């Protein structure tokens, strides 16, 4: 609870709050009950439909292979995005103007273009003109599109991570006789990279969620598997529910790791280690780079 808005309640407010609490709980439970009742009325709580969506066969042939493809794309995309991000993040900090300018254009461009557009385009590019080089065009399109977008976000994290370090770190580096480049590499970047780790883990949530866009270009990931399973059983509500639960479990676990990391790492850097918001460019980015978006 936010401590800004409320004082510790007295006896009378506590009575009011208890009453309000009960009313609130009744309303929330009422809405839930209404949803379940409607579903029941339409026969959607029928055990047969749910059994078809959760039996071992559907896990063996649909969810697990789908999940495997989702994780495979996310794993490749994560590694690529971190590499891309560190390279272009350093590029944006470079003392050479041309490098800085080039990195900025790349990063800003790929942050502004919707991931889905990149996937659709890359799928055609890989599938038509690079058919001999790229064996699996949908997979490659998903991975490359995710790398370009999330790599750009990570590049911003690198830059803002360095920018958020206390000024004394750089001054200390310079005053013991290191050059600006040496200070960046051996004093600032190591701390910035540790500080940004939780935000990178939060970005993995975005990677996982966006990998579901692969469904639209025919990549056989979790969502698509659930959809195919449903087309046989006529139960998309149930199978998509299972797919959504799978995503929630994975992402909640990732967010938990991010928060744990943020707490553990904060003593190992003078930067600010905090988890990202899990959508678009993180808040930390906005705060550190007010001049350009």
């Amino acid at each position, binding site marked *: *609870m*936010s*401590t*800004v*808005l*409320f*004082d510790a*309640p007295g006896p009378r*407010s506590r009575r009011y*709050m208890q009453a*309000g609490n*009960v009313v*609130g709980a009744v309303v*929330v439970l009422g809405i839930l009950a209404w949803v379940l009742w*409607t*579903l029941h009325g*339409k026969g*959607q709580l029928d055990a047969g439909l749910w059994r078809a969506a959760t039996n071992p066969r559907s896990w063996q042939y649909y969810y697990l292979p789908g999940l495997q493809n989702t994780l495979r794309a996310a794993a490749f995309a994560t590694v690529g995005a971190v590499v891309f991000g560190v390279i272009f993040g350093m590029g944006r900090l470079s003392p050479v103007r041309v490098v800085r300018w080039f990195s900025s254009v790349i990063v*800003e461009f790929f*942050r*502004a*273009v*919707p991931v*889905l*557009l*990149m996937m*659709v*385009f890359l799928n*055609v*590019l890989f599938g*038509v*003109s690079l058919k001999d080089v790229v064996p699996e065009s949908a997979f490659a399109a998903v991975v490359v599109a995710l790398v370009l977008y999330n790599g750009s976000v990570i590049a911003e994290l690198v830059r803002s991570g360095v920018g958020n370090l206390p000024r004394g770190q750089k001054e200390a580096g310079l005053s013991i006789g290191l050059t600006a480049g040496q200070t960046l590499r051996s004093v600032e970047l190591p701390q910035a990279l540790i500080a940004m780790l939780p935000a990178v883990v939060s970005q993995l*949530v975005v990677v*996982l*969620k966006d990998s*579901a*866009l692969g*469904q*639209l270009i025919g990549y056989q990931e979790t*969502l698509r598997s659930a*959809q195919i399973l449903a087309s046989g059983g006529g*139960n*998309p*509500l149930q199978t*998509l*529910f299972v*797919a*959504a639960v799978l*995503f*929630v479990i994975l*992402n*909640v676990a990732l967010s938990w790791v991010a928060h744990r990391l943020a707490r553990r790492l904060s003593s190992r850097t003078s930067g600010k280690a905090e988890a990202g*918001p*899990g*959508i*678009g460019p993180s*808040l930390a980015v*906005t705060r550190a780079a*007010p001049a350009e*978006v």
Partner: protein
Amino acid sequence: MTEFLEILRQYDVLGAFWVNLQLTFWGALLAFVVGTVLAVMRISPLASLRWAGTTYVDLVRNIPLTVIMVFLVLAVWGQLGVVLSQDFARNFFLLAVVGLGVYHAAFVCEAIRSGVNTVPVGQAEAARAIGLPFLAAARIVVLPQAFRGAVAPLGNTLIALLKNSTVAAAASVSTETSTAMKTMLEFRPDYRWEIFLTFAVGFVVLVIPIGLATTWLSSRLAVKR
């Protein structure tokens, strides 16, 4: 250059962008309303409402938007028979708006909450110290500063919403940009770079002003501390 002009003449690129802008507008409106309600629930003193708000946000922001869109079309419309409009295309458009609104409401809620968190406790304490009752303290002291602090994250959410409006393709909205681009790429694979750049630059042109405006607004409105 002539290739670009030919693309623009042959296909209704601007019309496709217009659909995305409409999706964004209505989606943002819905997301803002629902998100504000959620934020109020999450900062209220009532544990049950706080719990409901937190559960909504934690669930919705961990589900891919694509799953929500497909769910709305296949399950809510197809299986449950919820019809939002008799017109076929309009029905999908409205379903996509609902999907965008429901999904981004979670992020609007977080943006507003992070705005509240930017207000130092000392502000509320000072308000109480000069004898302001709870509502007055919230209205005069805390909330105005909270909204100023929420401008930047709200802008980020709006940008994400604009970009995510392409996911309406998963809700069978066939006139928006990603579907339009897919069709164009199928018919004119020889112009694929030009087609992609046209759409990509279109989004850059839309996103950058929103970003600049948000940054300008948030630094202008920021409470100097």
